[in-house]
Structure formats: C-alpha cells, structure tokens
C-alpha cells in the first residue's frame, strides 16, 4: 500500500490521522452503548468495568486512548498547519505529535496496570 511516492513522514502522518479517526468513529458508538447501560442496568456496567480489569481488555483500552491521543495531537498539528503562520518544520511537528500521543497514552497505560 505504501508506494515509493508516499514514503515520507507527512504522508504517514496523514494515514495515521485517517486510521485513528476512522477507528474512533467506529469505537465511539460502542462506547456510548456501554455507557448507556448505566441508565437501566447499572449492574451490567459494573460487570463491564470489572471485566475491564482483564489485561487483554486493558490493552484494548490502551489502544483506544492511544487512537484518541494520536488523533488529537495529529489534529492539533493540522490545525496549527492550517491556521497558524507557516512553519517550515512540518516533519518535526508531525513527529512531535506522534511522540506526544505516545506520552499521554503511555501514561494512561502505566496508570492502568
């Protein structure tokens, strides 16, 4: 899929942003659905949260926060690119966005285990 003309940081940043956005858009309805149990079946929510202690689920959760972090910082980068005065250091910014995403999601993960 990554053809030679695409192998550069900004294109990869674009791909990451798209995949994370898509991932979030697919996950969010599920998340909403689970939260809605709080309304009529609080016990199932609790059960769910206990189920969430399972390391595998933890990893999945980490993945979601990671997606969110990637997308948010990537989005911040894009908004900066589009609305702030131009900076020639786009590659550095793209890399920083990914780094920040790792930092935040990593913190979350460390707290969770």
């Amino acid at each position, binding site marked *: 899929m990554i053809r030679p003309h695409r192998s550069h940081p900004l294109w990869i940043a674009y791909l990451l942003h798209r995949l994370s956005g898509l991932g979030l858009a697919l996950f969010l309805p599920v998340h909403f659905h689970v939260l809605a149990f709080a309304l009529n079946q609080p016990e199932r929510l609790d059960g769910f949260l206990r189920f969430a202690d399972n390391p595998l689920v933890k990893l999945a959760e980490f993945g979601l926060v990671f997606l969110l972090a990637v997308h948010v910082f990537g989005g911040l980068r894009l908004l900066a690119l589009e609305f702030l005065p131009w900076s020639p250091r786009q590659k550095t910014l793209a890399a920083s966005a990914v780094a920040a995403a790792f930092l*935040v999601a990593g913190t979350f993960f460390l707290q969770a285990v």
Partner: protein
Amino acid sequence: MLGLKLYMAQRLSAMVMIPLTLGHIAVMIYAIQGGLSAAEILGRTKGSVLWFLYYGLFVLSVSLHASIGLRVIVHETLGLKGRALEIFMWLSGLLLLAMGLRALVAVTL
C-alpha cells in the same frame, strides 16, 4: 466533496473538542489511578449540570466532526457521492448523536 461550510464545521468542532478530550483523558487517568468503581464515577457525574454540559458539548461536536470525517473517507475510498453521500453523512451523524445523547442521559441525569 468538502466545501467551505463543512470544512468550517469540522475544524470548529475539532477545536471545541481539544480541551474536552484532553480533559477526559486526564479524568480517566485520575479515575483509574484512584481505582474508582462505576458507581463512584456515576455518583460524581449524576445530577451535575457541569458534567452534563461538558459531555453534552462533546457529543454534539463529535457527531458533527465524525460524520463529516466519515463522509470524506467514504467519498475518497468508496467513491460514494451526491445524495447517497449526503444521506450517509446525516445518518452517521444522527446515529452518533442519538447514541451519545442516550449515554449522556444515563451518565449525568
């Protein structure tokens, strides 16, 4: 497939969500660290106008933002266009909105 208006809607909603999502992640880290149970979390959010507004704004923004985002992806990868594309965008937005509101009500009312 994205004119100025949709673009504005998507970018503005993204800007609104920046503090909201960062705040949300922070809260979650805090909650997990404190080892809060669902009941405890709900105890704090239920009946709180502040949390209602917080997550209400998020649900509105994300429905707008994600439906436009999905519209772009669907157009560019599946080639959907014209009315079908409009319908897709509205349906996905309304679905997110409905599910989001249901969760909002459950969590904060």
